[in-house]
């Protein structure tokens, strides 16, 4: 029987499983879900596995990296992604360099978890999309799950893999339901979540769920849209992405990041370079800081209606 869970339930279940599997795994802070999503009991159940640092993102991030080099694996729940900017230097300029600079003799298997994107009401300083910066750092693995199965795989991959990893999460994924396999999936492989012959929508994280809703809207108009979920943004699985897109001549790439340097723009470039005849389009958040008012957020962040409209414009239907 297939297990169906909500996204936040799958996230907690995966985290509990990894904490049970690795008795030395330590959390530096406990805000994986809180304050935005239901906690599911992490704080009580694993109180002795959580070391609460002061509000010191630089030293906390760096300590996690140093600990990883010395054999202690940690997960650092950073909560709102912009708090990561205080710890940016160690995350982008220490962790990803450890293996390279040591000639492969040392690694820094450490995991960071952030809540990125528009959560509504956070405004300009609390609704960033740092994945567009993070995926440009060689040596830093960036995972952006969209489904319960994805987050299950992402937590497993981040807490058992050998590369420093950032899980770019999104508060608004919490209630989406989905099936889980008996063991974590391979996070590296893109997943076709819906098939359709007219157009392929490629995305990650919350925009995958928005694309699925858009595909439903399009179906009402007789347009068959497929949706491809690419949960590992870096290193981007090039060959698998090309294989998963090769059946479609019309592809829309959707990203909650601003367009410049976004993961979706990179995917688009890879696909178009390999298949110059493909008709490709990019739909991203517009180039403004996140506004506060919900109506203004909707004016710049793609939702199902904008994605559906972009597909119709692309197909001329």
């Amino acid at each position, binding site marked *: 029987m297939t297990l169906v869970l909500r996204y936040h339930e799958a996230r907690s279940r995966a985290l509990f499983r990894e904490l049970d599997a690795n008795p030395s795994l330590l959390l530096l802070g406990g805000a994986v879900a809180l304050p935005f999503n239901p906690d599911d009991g992490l704080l009580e159940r694993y109180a002795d596995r959580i*070391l609460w640092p002061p509000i010191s993102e630089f030293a906390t991030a*760096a300590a996690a990296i*140093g600990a990883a080099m010395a054999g202690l694996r940690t997960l650092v729940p950073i909560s709102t992604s912009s708090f990561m900017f205080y710890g940016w230097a160690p995350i982008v300029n220490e962790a990803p360099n450890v*293996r390279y600079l040591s000639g492969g003799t040392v690694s820094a298997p450490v995991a960071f978890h952030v809540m990125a994107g528009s959560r509504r009401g956070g405004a300009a300083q609390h609704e960033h999309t740092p994945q567009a910066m993070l995926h440009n750092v060689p040596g830093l693995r960036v995972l952006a799950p969209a489904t319960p199965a994805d987050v299950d795989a992402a937590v497993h991959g981040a807490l058992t893999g050998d590369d420093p990893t950032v899980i770019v999460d999104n508060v608004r994924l919490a209630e989406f339901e989905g099936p889980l396999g008996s063991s974590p999936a391979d996070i590296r492989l893109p997943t076709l979540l819906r098939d359709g012959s007219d157009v392929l929508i490629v995305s990650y994280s919350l925009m995958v769920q928005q694309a699925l809703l858009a595909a439903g809207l399009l179906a009402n108009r007789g347009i068959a849209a497929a949706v491809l979920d690419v949960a590992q943004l870096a290193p981007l699985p090039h060959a698998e992405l090309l294989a998963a897109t090769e059946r479609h001549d019309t592809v829309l790439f959707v990203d909650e990041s601003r367009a410049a340097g976004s993961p979706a723009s990179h995917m688009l470039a890879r696909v178009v370079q390999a298949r110059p005849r493909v008709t490709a389009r990019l739909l991203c958040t517009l180039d403004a800081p996140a506004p506060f008012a919900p109506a203004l957020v909707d004016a710049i962040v793609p939702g199902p209606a904008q994605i559906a409209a972009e597909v119709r414009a692309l197909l001329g239907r």
Partner: protein
Amino acid sequence: MTGPDRLSRLAAMLRARRFDETLIANAALVTGVFHVSIGHEGVAAALAGARRASDLIMLNHRNHGALAAIGTDLEVCYREILGRDGGPQRGRAGSLHLADAARGVPYTSAMVAGGVALAVGMALAKQRLGREGIVFACFGDGAMGEGAMYESLNLAALWALPLVFVCESNASADRDGSRANVLQAARTLTGLADVHQIPATSVDGGDPEAMARTMDDAVAAVRGGGGPRFIEARLQPWPGNAAFLPRLVTGELDLSDAERPGAAGAWSAADPVLAEARALLRDGVALADLLVLDRSVRASVERAFASAAGAPSAPDSVAMSGVWAP
């Protein structure tokens, strides 16, 4: 300390000094930036004397002296600094990131104060995993200007981590003495450790014996489970340091100067290697014996350089290897 121990300490310091002098003399062969440890040899020797095999050491961009003192293969260091193949880093690291995992230096961050915060995590791992050994975080006074430094002091103290903060302070002293140095509002650097409840000692880093005693005391306290300690090693800034490439403005070290008080100016009076040689002469060791030791160290350093300079570059494929886990 006994005569033979002091001689081995002088040997470690000479290894560090001759390594840097030889490098400066051949700077034209280096395609990038490097920083030397001239004037820091007393700290390097104290570190080498206090460390155990189970310890971890976080160095910084000025790392040559400490590596030479703890016994890292100097030819491997030269190969890396010259961008040649041979060591594990194979030209990907250069002088800034020299490391020696086998001697407790797994990785070297060249970002000011960046390595200090990493060392906090290494000490956390030692503590949580119940592993043997302590961690040394070596940094310059410049790191005391970074916020990362204060976050690190706070975490180390809050969590009572087995960590020795070693500040190699080579800043120009503030003229009127009301501040620690011209870039620091605090009166003393040790005061900045004090406010975090970290016992701190200031020592003349140009006096290798005093430096070693201070280091040994701090290390004993940390090994005993007393939480972190902070050492400020006050160093005379060596005048050859420069923003890009150092210049040997003081000339090569001549150990005979140890017998000629005041012969070679202000730097000679502050030079920790000469200070160590003078102490040995006072203990009755003959200058001729020191010169024999120096010649032997020098010959091995020069052999290491010549061999490294003849080594090939790594193949292009190395540039793309080690980015991701295999």
